[in-house]
């Protein structure tokens, strides 16, 4: 098993921490993992992305030019990464702020309207966990128990009381993700 993922959006959306929780979930499941951020002069409102690789075998390059899955959370990232999904791969996006929806027909496309759902849940900060839940529904690369263990590992202890809220958001994500088109 090998899954090569790019998560891309605005700085402040929790892109890097979502990748970190995913990577830690892989560690908990005894997988090989890598987490490579674009660490440029990104800031809140700028773009941010992270490449996460989960694999049963030793990982070669932490830097990739094509991905099994792209999780896209703003228009700039759509413009940049839609073309880099491998044929037959998966694109997951939040339609909030998206003016040009994905057009490829050789990949599986899913929509998870996490911004809207997070607002409805009065819990904007769990936005990224709703997205993560959606992703895990489509592609259960890591077991849910390992995701919770990963959450515990990546959150400082003083924030552990927030874990149930995050679990809840992940569960909500699994419910609201919708298939937009499927490769024929």
């Amino acid at each position, binding site marked *: 098993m090998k899954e090569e993922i790019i998560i891309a959006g605005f700085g402040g959306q929790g892109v890097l921490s979502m990748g*970190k929780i995913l*990577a*830690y979930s892989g*560690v908990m499941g005894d997988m*090989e*993992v*890598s*987490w*490579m*951020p674009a*660490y*440029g*002069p990104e800031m809140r409102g700028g773009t941010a992305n992270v490449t996460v690789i989960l694999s049963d075998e030793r*990982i*070669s*390059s*932490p*830097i*990739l*030019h*094509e991905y099994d899955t792209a999780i896209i959370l703003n228009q700039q990232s759509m413009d940049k990464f839609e073309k880099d999904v491998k044929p037959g791969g998966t694109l997951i996006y939040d339609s909030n702020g998206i003016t040009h929806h994905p057009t490829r027909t050789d990949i599986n496309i899913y929509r998870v309207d996490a911004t809207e759902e997070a607002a409805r849940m009065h819990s904007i900060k769990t936005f990224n966990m709703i997205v993560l839940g959606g992703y895990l529904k489509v592609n259960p690369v890591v077991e849910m128990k390992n995701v919770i263990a990963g959450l515990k*590992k*990546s959150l400082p202890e003083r924030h552990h009381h927030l874990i149930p809220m995050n679990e809840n958001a992940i569960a909500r994500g699994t419910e609201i993700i919708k298939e937009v088109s499927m490769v024929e």
Partner: protein
Amino acid sequence: MRELKLMKGNEAVAEAAIRCGVDGYFGYPITPQSEIMETLMDLRPWESTGMVVLQAESEIASINMVYGGAGCGKRVMTTSSSPGVSLMQEGLTYLAGAELPCVVVNVVRGGPGLGTIQPAQSDYFQTVKGGGHGDYKLITLAPASVQEMADFVEDAFNLAFKYRNPVMILSDGVIGQMMEKVELKEFAPRWTMDYIEENHPWATTGKKKERAKNIITSVQLEASVQEAFNHKLQAKYRAVEENEVLFEEVLCDDAEYIIVAYGSSARICQKSIEIAREKGIKVGMLRPITLYPFPAEQLRKRAEQVKGMLSVEMSAGQMVEDVKLAVECKIPVEHFGRFGGSVHSPGEVVEALEQKLIGG
């Protein structure tokens, strides 16, 4: 049970330094390596092992604090990124001239000048060809994973004290910033004064009645004395070249082409090899782990077997010169690399291999 942690290469350097019993860290923040000192400050080793962690007023101060600590036989280190390491060059040549052991980590970013904060490998020349003035060498280790970022700290100190020479860990923004699983060693105690006096009798540990003064200096005003000293240095470097070359080979035995790459480029090229092999191109990789001493002899051997070599580095072409010298122009040697903070993708490397060596 072994404990696996997920951490950045920079964090791994800090953890490993404390665990292998380093006495002192002196540094000044700069992206992309600031997590090293941040992690040390978080871990507060002065409360556990007694290790000193000090933010100096500049990189120049840091490297000179290292000179002072190293002169006392202590295991001391500093870390920085390219512009900061340029500031340290005077200190490094003085350390080499005074034969002082220490470890310096350079998490390289794009230059020249203040440049960019993104990854690069364009400090190869500065590191292995001098940087500072005079005939000196830095033993140079090039980690290609977070695990190696951790492991090489202790390895570097061992080499530094074995040869009484500064050792550089030449990393880059990719290895520094990425997170991978890493297994950390158990805590080792710091050296005692008795241990230092017994094993490193050159150190300035306080003059005893039974021995003469230990003097740490790099100044020899008499030319003949300086020449004799330089012969001694050169003999040491020959011993390093004889005994300390490290490299890793990937799929070289049946290879028709060899990619030579170190650090993060070696990781990227490993994927390029997978892609190329699927296309039927027989390509392998030789990864120098020590950049000085350089695995020239192994490259020379491989040159008899392969049709060409591609040096892949995030620079405009630096290590490629050493590859060419090693193979003595017997086969074509080409360079490929993005630079200035851009990082080549595995696919771009395969295209370069096809265009520059196979198609050409």
